């Protein structure tokens, strides 16, 4: 039985799955983790962004057959087990960032990865890290503001463990 390490859990995906299937569609169709979104299929929009061993990747470009022990984190894995939202998720709510909301899971995954590596990003840092994520509704000024708020909240503390994908109190 093939398995994937997703959000700190080992999940079965069966043996019948076509190894060329992008991780995106395995998450959505097989595992029901529909927070990761399909936007373009060619790594242009960032709506499908997840973390692989803590780094942001476009899940539409990762054939599931290429995965073995990588730790995958999706938007569904950011909140604590008790439901407490991560600082980035909270900042997104505080700034009322979403319009349609479709891209925001990908935006939050990219922002979360940015803040793990750079706890106090400048505008230029934010623009560089977030340029792979299109927001068709144009929520960019709020995304910038929310990332800065999240940075202040976090003050450099990790909020999930990139090695295991599990939540750290």
């Amino acid at each position: 039985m093939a398995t994937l390490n997703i959000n700190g859990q080992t999940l079965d995906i069966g043996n019948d799955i076509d190894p060329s299937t992008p991780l995106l569609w395995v998450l959505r169709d097989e595992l029901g983790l529909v927070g990761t979104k399909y936007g373009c299929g060619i790594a242009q929009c960032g709506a499908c962004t997840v973390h692989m061993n803590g780094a942001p990747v476009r899940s539409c470009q990762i054939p599931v057959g290429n995965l073995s022990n990588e730790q995958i984190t999706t938007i569904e894995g950011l909140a604590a087990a008790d439901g407490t939202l991560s600082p980035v998720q909270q900042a997104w709510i505080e700034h009322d960032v979403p319009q349609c909301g479709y891209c925001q899971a990908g935006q939050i995954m990219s922002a979360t990865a940015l803040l793990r590596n750079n706890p106090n990003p400048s505008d230029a840092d934010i623009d560089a890290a977030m340029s792979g994520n299109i927001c068709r509704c144009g929520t960019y000024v709020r995304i910038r503001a929310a990332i800065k708020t999240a940075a202040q909240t976090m003050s450099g503390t990790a909020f999930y463990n990139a090695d295991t994908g599990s939540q750290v109190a």
Partner: protein
Amino acid sequence: MTPPSNSVMPAFFEKTSYARDDKSLAADISRRRFFKISGIAGGGLTLGMAMGTSQAAAQDGSSVAEANISPYVQIQANGRINIFSKNPECGQGIKTGLPLIIAEELDARWADVDVVQADIDASRYGLQLAGGSLSTPMNWTAMREAGATARMMILAAAAEQLYVPVSELSTRDSMVIHEASGESYPYSEFAELASSMPVPDQQTLKLKDPSEFSLLGRRFGGVDNHAIVQGSPLFGIDVRREGMVYASYTKSPALGGTARSFNQAHIKSLPGVIDAFILEPFGELIGSTIFDAVRLGGVSIVATSTWAAIKAKQELEVDWDLSTADTSATWSDISANALRLSKQEGVMEILNKGNVDAAFDNAEQVVEAYYEYPYVSHANLEPQNCSALYENGQLQVWAPSQTPQAGEAAAAVVSGLPPAAVTLNQTRIGGGFGRRLNNDYVSEVAAIARRMEGRPVKLQWTREDDMAFDFFRPGGFHAFRAALDAEGRMTAFSDHFLTQAKNDEAEQPIETANLTPDVLPMEHLQNVRIMQTMQAAAIQTGPMRAPGSNAFGFVFQSFLHEVAVAGNRDFRDFLLDLMNIPDEDMPQPPSNLPPGFPPPIPFSNTRARDVIFTVADRAEWGRPMPQGRALGLAFYYSHSGYVAQVADVSVSSAKEVTVHKIWSVADFGLIHNRSSAENQVQGSIMDGLSQLMYAKISFEKGIIEQSNFHQYPLLRISRAPALDVHFLEPEDVAPTGAGEPALPPVLPAIANAIFTATGERVRKLPLSESGYTLV
């Protein structure tokens, strides 16, 4: 052959202003009819439903009695208040906005409110639609009355239960207060009795004075934000059902072709493929309105996963019958012909008033310019999709549609089912922008689901499908002339508008490719002539955010700036002078709406001048700017909203454009959710920036040439300017829609700044075609 009439709703959707007093609206009438029905026969219904279980209660296993006070308000025994949001949510914030209005008049504490997406039901909710910036103005009075009605019924029940006269009771924060005794009681204590109270006469409702508002005007986050940031299922694409199968649909690249045959045996042998079959076209897509039930012919592949359906699609080989397709439309030809035709007399007169020829003969100076803009795609980030289940003669549809009622009707029409056999569930929409006013994906999945009877099907378009089969914003061309007198005042204005029609026989332009005779300065000058010439182009078009205005804003406000410059006038002063006409002298605009809708209200020069004054102040218009950097100004009026914007722009010698900041001042009447209204303006500005710099759809022999975001770029965060968003809220002006009117002035504000900074006037969209890059 004349196609069958597939219209499922009246085409009332046009760019029009709406009267503030919307009491005669069709939606309102339907709503009152419901109240009346529920007042007479509703006792049984209400009692029956009162014992039901709410969604939230069902989830946590508890059983909570709830009472339906109205189609919009349901109060649970535990004190939670369900408010039903009738219209589709596509990012415009209406799922939060309409319930806020109800909660205000209901005197509900917002923290007690759970917003529930309403069913599609015209008998209870009237028109359910996300378009035309109509949701707020059309429902403002009705939502206030819904809240006030429920509040009065709660008060009546409280008076009966507490044995006190209603006059001794008041309400606040979901509580009934009896001041004399100092007691207060939660609404839930009276909810069950309230639900059986007679519905008060509309005349007896006392709506709040805006000074009494405790919720409206403040900032509220979207009610789905918690679900969005956690990736919870919300959107059409997120629909999952037990035993679901997944479909792709492949249409003729040349629009209108039908499938003769395809490599069916091979496709059906591919891993995961369950079925593959041809669907015949339904209706006629080209030139259809948003309320027509239409479907292009093509080949559907149904598989065990989305990926299997997409992968098999890549191996599809179809023998297309192109005899019904248009293979002639080529954008470069249309563009070249338009320039040639622009030099001839226009074919059709749209407006001719005063004595235009005499004014030009007597002009001290004549300004002429020719403008061009291309077709543009909506590019919703959620590619079109739709789910459906056909079982036991019933069709269930889950659709991210801006016109769910038309979608439901379309599903019935294309399936040959009675309307009662079809139920459409509305989902959150991953970007509307007008694309999802059309329900072509509903018509497709309805046919696929019938074939796959008993199995729920999700139809998923690829991004490439989405870009090729959009209902595009049409391109167009304008040959402008203006006459100036010795003082630099404009004395006459003319436009030869070159646009497209579905074929050579058509008497009107194709959908949304028409020019209405109310764009500034048409109503503000004595001598105006607008002529029109059409070329055939069988490319499907439809409304896109601020239809018409999204292109006219750029061309008219750029040209007026040219006129001001030629007359040596400051553009702010030029616009203010042009609109220095008493409001009462403005003409009554023509109504594009069917009977039953209110007449549009005339343009207010006072409100227009106020937004221009204010934005100029905020941006410090007229201040000295460094070399290569300038401020640009533009004003536009659409969807009853007045918006003026100033852009601060630098341009390098290599034509690299930096937009440092944009100031926006809008008058949309009363702002009822400030965060949401700001979000709409901010988003409109970013959208306008994409259109100015990048957006272009071209076609060659009827085939769209762009396929994905590498060929059709959208603005990214690194190019997003700083924004200053401000609202003017004149007294006693009810809210109008905020989702569209802030887009049209963005493009000319930046383009006018580029001219001022460089001396080069760009008259063609997008600016990338003229060598400009956004940095």
